[in-house]
């Protein structure tokens, strides 16, 4: 039996300003991890990644990141991805500088 597939989200950086973005189920790029589509199937994950990589007018560096379901939507499981939802720890820059929900979609 094959190993259980770890759920994924598709993440990337916005092309112009580089902010971290996540692919949603309805094909938008959200600034919020919890709005991402949680992908539980490997083949579907590859499809979604390909479709993300094709959107090179909007994003750069798309990849699949491990995630898990949470009460408000998908949550990161690795600290690197947690940091990406916030910004650096030495200044209140990046996402943490903005109040949640205010970020425009790409």
């Amino acid at each position: 039996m094959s190993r259980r597939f770890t759920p994924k989200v598709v993440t990337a950086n916005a092309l112009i300003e580089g902010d971290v973005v996540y692919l949603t189920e309805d094909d938008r790029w959200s600034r919020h991890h919890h709005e991402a589509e949680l992908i539980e199937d490997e083949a579907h994950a590859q499809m979604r990644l390909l479709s993300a990589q094709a959107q090179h007018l909007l994003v750069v560096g798309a990849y699949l990141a491990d995630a898990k379901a949470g009460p408000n939507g998908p949550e990161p499981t690795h600290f690197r991805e947690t940091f990406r939802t916030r910004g650096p720890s030495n200044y209140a820059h990046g996402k943490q500088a903005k109040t949640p929900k205010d970020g425009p979609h790409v």
Partner: protein
Amino acid sequence: MYKYNDFDEAFVRTRVAQFSQQVARRIDGSLTEDEFKPLRLMNGLYLQLHAYMLRVAIPYGTLDSRKMRQLAHIADTWDKGYGHFTTRQNIQYNWPKLSDVPAILGALADVEMHAIQTSGNTVRNVTADHFAGAAADEIADPRPYAELLRQWSTDHPEFQFLPRKFKIAITGAPNDRAVTKAHDIGLRMVTNAAGEPGFEVIVGGGLGRTPLIGQTVREFLPEADLLPYVEAVLSVYNLLGRRDNKFKARIKITLHETGKEELSRMIEERFEEIRGSFSGADQALLEEIRAAFAPPAFKTAPTDAHYAAQARDPAYRAWADTNLARHRNADYAIVTVSLKAHGATPGDASSAQMRVLAELAETYGHDELRISHEQNVILPHVHKGDLPAVHAALKAAGLATANVGLISDIIACPGMDYCSLATARSIPIATQIAERFKELDLEHEIGPMKIKISGCINACGHHHVGHIGILGLDRAGVENYQITLGGDGTETASIGEKAGPGFAYDEVVPAIERLISAYLETRLEPAETFLAAFRRLGPAPFKAALYPEEGNRNAA
């Protein structure tokens, strides 16, 4: 200060124009990211965790007030009001927008700066002793040679596709402040029996995955032979260097696999072949360059103010003790401005601080500034009579921290707060150590101490050559920090030894504290530094301090 010649100017402007078009074509979709990525990297533009990052070269770490003000202007206009100085004597902007990068490069070109060859498999920014042209122990200013090497290597057709990146460091003094033994080529100025200046040529040093101290392939190279010899090293490397395996592609591996004797023989052979083709034009150019680096007109004035301030003001005295170095002119001092205020990010300077530094350089420092690989800023030529005024201005700008060379003067790479290659954070480890030892009020008691932190195996934070090195790793999805002991980046270079198992994020500061207590208990006298004590005693007492539970287990 050295001025670009017309060729340089035209070259940089052309590159800016080309890159502007490439950015426009990336944004309108005519270039894919796969096509664009090598182009942006050639222009110093990286994609990091939270944003793009633009890496700007500061050749041999030298700036003047005009350049520094422009760096401040860029930080304010297109970034978040600060810049990060790195161990490569570069400045990095952490938040540029892709669409603004052409304008930034244009603004850099206005002050003869650029971001070319800060990436890729080329000869990178040549780094130099940050006290160049000022140090009392210097044989000659190394920067004219660094500039000669820069001009020769920039866009050199033979060396644009080396097996891997190539770093050259140069120092004009026997005391090595440029970590020459950890570079692909290290050039250390020495004199021969006749008193003539030349270079000890060290090849194959490097940190990263396989840390190695370079080996001397030539004890004494006459200065006139510098360019043909360096070209010989590069062309032998270009031929032998492995292109099949990225991790084995640096010249340090070539040296290891070929052997020093055979490599030296091949270099000498190639050198003899090409030497004749260097018609002396390089020497004429060197003379020209040297004129541009002529020392400033040092003034003669009373120095009393400095001594009076030292006698009167303990804060000034502490700063003078740690942050001043001996200048070749006895009435002058070299000022190291610490970018390591306790709790602040090592190497970061706000635009306001950059402007203060520019102003001070202009008013009191013969308009010269340097960036050190230790992530501090140097005012290389300050008359002693002006030091109290300089100190006061620095203090007002939050730049008078008296900690150069002490435990809080930590090198830390950006780590996982910014860098996409990182396996753990480094900045918060640095700030926590600095704050803890400030709280303990121990740093002057501890004395000379170099802690260096990297956020991954690439070792941009030089952790292998830290007296205490800290390497951040990802162990099964948790940040974990490996400690190395006894590293040294100077002329007595050594690679630190791994102490043992790594520490969790919140265990690092207590571990360092135990280490320091062990040192304070075992040193023979206050003058015996941590490194000296480590060399005398070996790792045992320090390991015992780091892993007390092991001792307990053995005793049980």
